[in-house]
């Protein structure tokens, strides 16, 4: 079989694991870990697709680097949001800020 399919399968499994964590975890930090797993799968998929086909390899690798940069920016913002939530609601579970005021 061709190797690209194997790489895409690993990336797909990482996506599935990340989505599972995003849905099933109770805390915001656990959900963040799931998102990081998904972004990793995305990077792996991009690099594999660029390196193993006739697509532009430079574009693929730079795309993966951009995904990493976006992941770092996202992690920074989520850290700040988790801090605010835990300061305001006392814990960092995803259910804590689910009530509307009114």
């Amino acid at each position, binding site marked *: 079989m*061709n*190797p*690209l399919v194997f*790489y*895409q399968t*690993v990336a*797909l*499994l*990482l*996506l*599935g*694991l990340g*989505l*599972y*964590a*995003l*849905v*099933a*975890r*109770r805390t*915001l*930090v*656990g959900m*963040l*870990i*799931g998102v*990081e*797993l998904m972004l*990793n799968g995305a990077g*792996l998929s991009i*690099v*594999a*697709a660029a*390196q193993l*086909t*006739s697509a532009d*390899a*430079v*574009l693929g*690798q*730079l795309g*993966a680097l*951009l995904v*990493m*940069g*976006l*992941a*770092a*920016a*996202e*992690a*920074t*913002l989520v*850290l*700040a949001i*988790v*801090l*605010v939530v835990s300061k305001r609601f006392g814990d*960092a*579970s995803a259910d804590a800020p689910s009530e509307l005021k009114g």
Partner: protein
Amino acid sequence: MNEMYLGQAAFAFYSLIALAGGVLAVSAASLVRAMLGLVVSLFGVAGLYLLLLADFVALMQILIYVGAVTVLIFFAIMLTRASADGGEAQGPGLRGNLRGVFGALLPAGILVPCLAVYGVAGFPTPKNVSPAELGAGLLGPYTMAFELISVVLLAAMAGAVLLAFEKRGAAK
């Protein structure tokens, strides 16, 4: 012939590391252990990048993800001052598990048939791109993306400071 088997064995090894780390990151009851699972998974993916001859991306993966993002997650765990388990001790429960499995299988149900129908036959061996070519790409056709990501990082940094900053006298 031997080298081909060696490549397949390395692929199996690295993907096993990546997936086992992912499973630990998803299922661990303690958030610190989940983060360690994420680190293991990141290293496995870095190995896969090496196997794809994307050595610069592999190094950046270790530098950015393992070095920076993981530290941020660790800060998030420690600064929220949750209990030692981080509030994950009781697990997702049956309904959470069901929802999680459904959510994980949904994209697979769409993407696997797409992969089977529209899958491109890849080369058996990856191309080799030197970091110099990557740099030329960043300064040539992809300058805009390079500048935009720096703006995004700056905005994220400023936003994080703005969100987490406490006004003097506001804290009770």
